[in-house]
């Protein structure tokens, strides 16, 4: 579909960000959730070659073209989702983790997630008291068309409620929470199944964490202005 090469000089010891010129696709096969269409995936491979050395590093990923949006419905208070402009009736399953001893094999993930798809679900919600799920989990959600609602590690019971009442300002180290959150986002953000980040379970994180998460996860202004369809979400 696309092959593009760019040349670049990187100073000694430098750590830089580089953005490729945008790649154009005419009517690509879109990625759809389970029951709405195919889960079309494109392989994106990026390679860096260094003059006089040859291939230096490479990366590849299964990428799906899809646009997911959601809003709170004023009439019902429920969250309405659209995928690729089409409203979707969410049929979801709650997920904590695959195994309490964290024996998280690919085969186990595949079996569990295919089972959700076979049940005609189209979303899995990863509960805030459990894990930020692993790339292998997301891989099979990409394959089987399960949207993922991923919560960060806040629960009402451990962060503000319970008996005795727990600390609403938890965790103790807010900077550490944000370090972990930002790194988790970087680990998972390219998966087409990733639909929604949520601060926690039945509770919002402390104000400073909540504001930082909202700020870091909002749509970049470049895409806000670029994307003419964003207003439909």
């Amino acid at each position, binding site marked *: 579909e696309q092959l593009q090469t760019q040349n670049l000089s990187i100073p000694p010891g430098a750590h830089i960000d580089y953005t490729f010129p945008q790649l154009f696709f005419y009517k690509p096969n*879109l990625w759809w959730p389970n029951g709405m269409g195919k889960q079309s995936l494109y392989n994106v491979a990026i390679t860096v070659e260094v003059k006089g050395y040859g291939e*230096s590093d490479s990366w590849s990923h299964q990428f799906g073209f899809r646009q997911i949006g959601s809003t709170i419905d004023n009439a019902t208070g429920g969250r309405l989702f659209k995928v690729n402009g089409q409203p979707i009736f969410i049929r979801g399953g709650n997920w904590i983790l695959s195994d309490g001893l964290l024996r998280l094999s690919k085969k186990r993930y595949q079996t569990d997630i295919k089972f959700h798809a076979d049940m005609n679900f189209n979303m899995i919600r990863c509960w805030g008291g459990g894990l930020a799920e692993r790339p292998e989990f997301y891989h099979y959600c990409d394959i089987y068309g399960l949207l993922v609602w991923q919560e960060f590690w806040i629960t009402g019971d451990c962060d503000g409620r319970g008996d005795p009442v727990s600390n609403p300002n938890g965790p103790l180290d807010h900077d550490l929470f944000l370090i972990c959150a930002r790194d988790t986002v970087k680990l998972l953000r390219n998966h087409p199944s990733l639909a929604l980040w949520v601060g926690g379970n039945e509770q919002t994180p402390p104000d400073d964490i909540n504001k930082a998460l909202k700020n870091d996860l909002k749509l970049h202004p470049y895409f806000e202005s670029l994307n003419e369809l964003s207003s439909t979400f």
Partner: protein
Amino acid sequence: MAELGKTELDSGWLAARSTEVDLTGIQLTTTHPPSLNSSSSPWMEAVVPGTVLGTLLKNKLIPDPFYGLENDAILDIGDSGRDYYTFWFFTTFKCAPSGNQHVDLNFRAINYSAEVYLNGHKKILPKGMFRRHSLDITDILHPDGQNLLAVLVHPPDHPGNIPPKGGQGGDHEIGKDVAAQYVEGWDWMTPIRDRNTGIWDEVSIYVTGPVKIADPHLVSSFFDNYERVYLHATIELENRNDWVAECSLIIHVTTELVENACLV
């Protein structure tokens, strides 16, 4: 010259309770590597990635916590103290990079903090169950022989205590840490005795040339009712050498039309 890319370290691991090991991390990774030779050895085969309980279960040192009421027979960290579930993990690997190659040791997640020793060199991994750690080990590798890797893994700082009647998140202490909170037990789950302490996700070594790619970000934008679509790709690049790297960056997008046939 080592092959570029990732090699998972998911076999050959040993583990031992830290209180039963008298050696330091430096000794374990230089003069006194552990072995299973003696029956009195505290070392056992380990599950990596996995948790301490997973390793203890593999070695039949605890009953299966998910069978009947057998979880009650396993000592809870709230009663034992954190040292009881502080464990050493040890393995060896070979890697022989050439002059312009660089090698990283990557942990995709550890619960909760760790000290890493490689060939006698110590590195500290900071706290947090949900973060990656990447260590540049190029200069401390033994390119012509075995590399000895030991990791001392500490449980969460606030594992908490489980009230007699259980309850949602036990005594809630785990909420002080950035870790999974279900481990103190919930209405659907018994407490996890080690609070999921361990090297619970992938460990790997990763070989690159002079320039390394990190954290690519792919975003698409849509126009004309999804007829016109753009892919935006951003990457981080690190030149790890003391000379200017003249690079060619290649991005290649393919889709499989039928099995093993791609349109380019």
